[in-house]
């Protein structure tokens, strides 16, 4: 009973965290599901978003402007990965790892900007009392306008609405075609390299937005806040799909299901923490969950393919 009570008590926080990571999951959805690229930049660009936003805020910038700066920084990171992949011919996974690694050093430097006493910093604290923040976990149980959900829900819906519109445009359709079938896309005159770069830019912009919101929410940017982010994003996408793909067919709803997946992820995490697991065990748990959910469709496919794959088209 106590357990259940403390679980319900911490649910609002799980929803807050879930919404923030949900935006990150939407970014992952764009690369992983639409473009068919596993982009590992995100572990770095999430932190970059948090770092840039925190630095701007501590320097006294308007918090909305700080948010914008964070998004632009994330987009730049995506651009680098995109160019490493398309213009330099580096496999997408490796290109992402390279950017992520470079961002590790950069993020330490970014967080020290404006501090004459340090060249690098691993954490940058933000304070609700002294800094101008858009949201804070302190108010997650308040029933006032200060509650972070008041900001997070509309922001999430706005992101979904914008992407829904974008992927319905000529350019957005071209991007989807690039992810679905590159040979076809090129035969229809679509510049697939440009499409991939654009997708990575948009995706990492969203991831950085998520990082910027997270830094404010938890009251600090830390150098390891993005570690394993890709796996959390994948977990959210996959949980959302497993639970909702039968009901949610519309594209906007699919994006929403990634967000719901993230909320469920954090609710489950909260529960297992209450059950006595250490927070440091979470990465192991997350990795396990994602591995299993990724394996299930493969195993299913292997089983069914015995019946279907015979007599496929011969290769010329």
């Amino acid at each position, binding site marked *: 009973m106590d357990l259940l009570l403390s679980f319900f008590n911490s649910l609002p926080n799980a929803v807050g965290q879930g919404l923030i990571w949900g935006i990150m999951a939407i970014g992952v959805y764009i690369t992983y599901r639409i473009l068919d690229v596993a982009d590992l930049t995100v572990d770095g660009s999430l932190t970059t978003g948090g770092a840039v936003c925190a630095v701007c805020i501590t320097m006294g910038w308007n918090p909305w402007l700080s948010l914008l700066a964070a998004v632009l920084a994330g987009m730049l990171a995506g651009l680098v990965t995109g160019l490493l992949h398309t213009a330099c011919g580096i496999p997408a996974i490796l290109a992402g790892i390279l950017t992520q690694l470079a961002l590790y050093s950069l993020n330490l430097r970014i967080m020290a900007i404006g501090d004459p006493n340090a060249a690098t910093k691993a954490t940058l604290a933000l304070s609700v009392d002294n800094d101008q923040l858009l949201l804070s976990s302190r108010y997650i149980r308040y029933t006032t306008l200060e509650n972070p959900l008041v900001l997070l829900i509309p922001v999430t819906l706005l992101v979904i609405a914008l992407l829904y519109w*974008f992927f*319905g*445009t*000529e*350019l*957005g*359709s*071209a991007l*989807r*075609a690039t992810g*679905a*079938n590159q*040979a*076809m*896309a*090129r*035969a*229809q*005159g*679509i*510049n*697939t390299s440009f499409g991939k770069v654009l997708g990575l830019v948009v995706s990492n912009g969203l991831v950085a937005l998520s990082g910027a919101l997270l830094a404010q929410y938890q009251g600090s940017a830390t150098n390891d806040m993005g570690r394993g982010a890709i796996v959390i994003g994948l977990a959210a996408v996959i949980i959302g799909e497993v639970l909702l793909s039968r009901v949610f067919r519309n594209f906007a709803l699919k994006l929403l299901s990634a967000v719901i997946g993230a909320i469920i992820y954090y609710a489950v995490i909260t529960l297992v923490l209450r059950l006595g697991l250490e927070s440091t065990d979470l990465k192991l748990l997350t990795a396990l969950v994602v591995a299993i959910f990724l394996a299930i469709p493969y195993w299913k496919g292997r089983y069914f393919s015995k019946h279907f794959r015979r007599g496929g*088209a*011969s*290769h*010329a």
Partner: protein
Amino acid sequence: MLDIKGVSKTFNPGTINEKAALRSVSLHLEDGDFVTVIGGNGAGKSTLLNTVAGTYFPDAGTITIGGVDVTRLPEHKRAKYIGRVFQDPMTGTAATMQIEENLALARRRGASRTLRPGITRAERGEYRELLKTLDLGLEDRLTAKVGLLSGGQRQALTLLMASLVKPKLLLLDEHTAALDPKTAAKVLDATEKIVQRDHLTTLMITHNMRDAIVHGNRLIMMYEGRIALDISGEEKKKLTVEDLLAKFGQATGSDEADDKLLLG
């Protein structure tokens, strides 16, 4: 319309896998020519079409389409001149996208992709009418995912997409080879209709000698990266499979024509 001059292509040069797929091939197509291409496995037919389409660049030679030198133009840029149907029904369409979305992508071939809607209401009506002409019942399934279609339906759709914006050149690489005979005949029929209707300049690879003889106004046969035979006009109209085999033997000094061509 199409001018191929001295085009050569060697794969994996300088390695033990070196393969000269095209050896200084020259070919000129007049506006409205419908050329069928035959030849054994590995003769270089697909390589020829792929170099024209820009899948890869030739090592030597030039390719001109409608007076524009496209030799060094990337694939997506020359796509505005070219309609393509591939051998594998999976290649020509996006399986996870709807029929109408695929058509809308093809409708914008050669145009710049902007932030305007990817498909309009007016287009939908147009696509429905066009799909009716295929007579495959696709007109009622505009929003179905292409992945749900049969191989023949996908090839017919790809054909429609290839000709939605009139191409200067239609490239067909064994586009009926993966289909059962009945479906193959249907798709070939649709091909003939579209080519006639739009007077498309066409290159069609086939392994079926009878199809190669029946269709088109000109026939070329490739052998070891070269054009070994080139038959057109009255001579092509009177051609029989036996003639073709005999001519091939004379041209190449080999008698492997039978098994290589017929079994290929």
